């Protein structure tokens, strides 16, 4: 028996991984009409911006702070034209360049912020939910207190404090400010799910096998709890973009020298609007709306496909075949 096992073909590791991936994405492939459309629309839009962000130096005709080329200064507040597809700002920067580089800034900050929020919120939620007790009560108290404040307020306070400190007003400051606002969200979601999973027989079984708490959390609880996170993270990213833009709008975001930021551009464009100059505000503003919409669609699409409660499986259409008369003939005989 053992010899057979050794010579029997064993599935290659890679193929096993593919199968696992196939299982994980099964809900997405089986999703019904609306959920699918939402999901893919969101994917397309988000990908578009990701491409912009990643390949900004290659795509954008100019640097975001560039106000001249070949020694000639760009016109100020110029209408959209062949040279400047989206016009220029009061500081002679190309609006399109600022929009493209803005994508880079937004995504950079949000990705870092999300990573930090998850990195702090999820483990705390796991520990708090699994162990309970005083630690749990304390953490819940703290997190609920932070949760009670409006996101924007927390972000502004932290951004303000950090920007006057040695870290300065860069990408990291903005990221930290956003992180602080969202950690309680992930903490709560993960903790609540852990509390229900904790009572499941297979977690009990793991304890009965002799697994240490950290093993139980890692192998038995974590994977079953983490499925909730992607839809929330994407919806959260949408929210974070808005938060960053708001910070920028209020002047607490990225310093102009560090990067282009849409919210900042919109705030600068407010005074232009009075003079009938629409392109400095419209394009960055539209970019915000589009990216947030894309992420939201992606998040909602993920939620509809992954959440078993909302999931509407695609029911195949079928017809009842003609019934072969089995009984009738018999009754005649």
């Amino acid at each position, binding site marked *: 028996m053992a010899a057979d096992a050794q010579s029997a073909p064993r599935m290659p590791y890679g193929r096993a991984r593919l*199968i696992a991936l196939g299982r994980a994405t099964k809900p997405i492939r089986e999703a019904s009409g609306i959920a699918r459309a939402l999901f893919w629309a969101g994917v397309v839009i988000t990908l578009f911006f990701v491409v912009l962000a990643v390949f900004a130096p290659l795509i954008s005709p100019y640097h975001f702070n560039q106000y001249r080329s070949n020694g000639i200064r760009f016109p100020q507040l110029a209408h959209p034209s062949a040279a400047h597809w989206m016009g220029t700002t009061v500081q002679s920067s190309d609006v399109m360049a600022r929009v493209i580089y803005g994508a880079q800034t937004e995504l950079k900050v949000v990705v870092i912020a999300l990573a930090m929020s998850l990195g702090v919120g999820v483990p705390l939620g796991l520990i708090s939910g699994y162990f309970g007790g005083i630690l749990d009560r304390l953490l819940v108290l703290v997190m609920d207190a932070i949760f009670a404040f409006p996101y924007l307020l927390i972000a502004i306070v932290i951004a303000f404090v950090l920007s006057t400190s040695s870290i300065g007003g860069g990408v990291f400051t903005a990221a930290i400010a956003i992180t602080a606002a969202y950690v309680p969200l992930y903490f709560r979601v993960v903790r609540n799910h852990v509390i229900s999973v904790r009572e*499941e027989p*297979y977690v009990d079984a793991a*304890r009965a096998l002799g697994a240490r708490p950290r093993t139980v959390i890692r192998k038995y609880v974590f*994977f*079953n709890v983490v499925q909730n996170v992607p839809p929330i993270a994407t919806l959260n990213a949408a929210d974070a973009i808005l938060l960053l833009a708001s910070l920028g709008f209020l002047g607490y975001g990225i310093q102009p020298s560090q990067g282009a930021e849409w919210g900042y551009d919109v705030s600068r464009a407010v005074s232009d609007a009075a003079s009938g100059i629409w392109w400095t505000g419209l394009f960055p503003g539209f970019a915000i709306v589009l990216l947030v919409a894309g992420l939201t669609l992606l998040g909602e699409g993920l939620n509809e496909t992954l959440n078993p409660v909302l999931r509407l499986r695609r029911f195949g259409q079928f017809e009842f075949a003609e019934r072969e008369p089995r009984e009738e003939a018999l009754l005649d005989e």
Partner: protein
Amino acid sequence: MRPETVVTPESRGEHAPLVSIQDLRTYYSIRGSFADRLVGREAGVVRAVDGVSLDIRRGEVLGLVGESGSGKTTLGRTLLGLVRATSGSIEFEGRQIARLPERDWRALRREVQVVFQDPHASLNPAMTLEQAVGHPLVIHGLERDRERLRLRVIEVLERCGLAPGTDFLDKYPSDLSGGQKQRAVIARAIILNPTLLVADEPVSMLDMSVRAKILELMLELKQDFELTYLYITHDLATARFFCDRIAIMYLGRIVEIGPAEAIYAEPRHPYTQALLRAIPEPDPERVVPRDLPRGEVPDAALPPLGCSFHPRCPRAFEPCGWESRDLRELLEARWARAAGAAGVEEEQALVGDLDVLDRSTSEARLPAPRGRRPEDVVALLERIRAEDPAEPFWRGVERLEARGTRTEVDFHNPQDPRLEPVGGVEVACHLYGTTPPET
């Protein structure tokens, strides 16, 4: 009974039991209303296991039979260290394990394993069978080489009927049927070669045609691996087939314990008798029994006085623990039977609010409502007694009279029944007890 001979301690030359439980108690405190929680007050205590003493002999199958609220599952979990005992002692192979700290349980877990009831929930949905079944070896550091680990997993899977093992390694629980899942759970439990296996309703969630296969597998494994089983179930039919000895539990206590055949041949405790009568038997000559004990298992947080079964027992008498709540039940049952008939409302108005009787005391004090006389209540009760004098309740009543503005009922003193040997078994029932009924 099963064909093979029962392994007795004498035949193995061992006399000390594998597990010896003495007066074990596991209580849960329950969180009460919001106000209670605010102040931090406990609202009550559930006495899930309320003074259990028994031995598990090496090599036997001991059945723990009871309905919900009997405490059988909690007893199993206390034995496994998943729940801390409140008091009492558990000796496993000579070691005291009742309140062992979690740290010290790890090494012990290699010897005491469990199979749970719900095969669909006992396996981690995120782990393949190879990972799940092999995990015990990894946890205890018994097999670090990946290839050898896989071989051991294959071996134990095939031993449990999942062959060829290689086909099952990459399967997730959702790919398997109920019976296959339970086989995997059993495989996981025995891969460590434990001494004691606690099986909590291992087949009750499986189809009938599959149960036999899993029970057969468990019997084979018992032989091959020299296991001892604690078989927890509510199903007396499988227990009869599977177990050597059986302990019947009711509300945290053992009411009857003895060799399986003795219990089935001559059940002594009224609860055991009721259980056996109630099991639906696939014999069309039988009819649904109409004389089952009334009521249900009471709330474990507020157990009845004396013998917990007395409110439902058809043969209860003086010492069984009569109390105020029994009077309430008597009246309510009467009104339920006659519901809709004339006179019920009048009687309800005469007696008044019954909530005052909701106390666990051997005296009942029922204040007459405004404008009513307690003498009329006493007359009503006497009428009720005359209608059915055989009702056990009346044997518990020592004194019934009207005093001032209220009706007073005193019951005989309650006595807790203790397990005492009767014939070849032990029974905790005053009918067989050496405690003389109060004259």
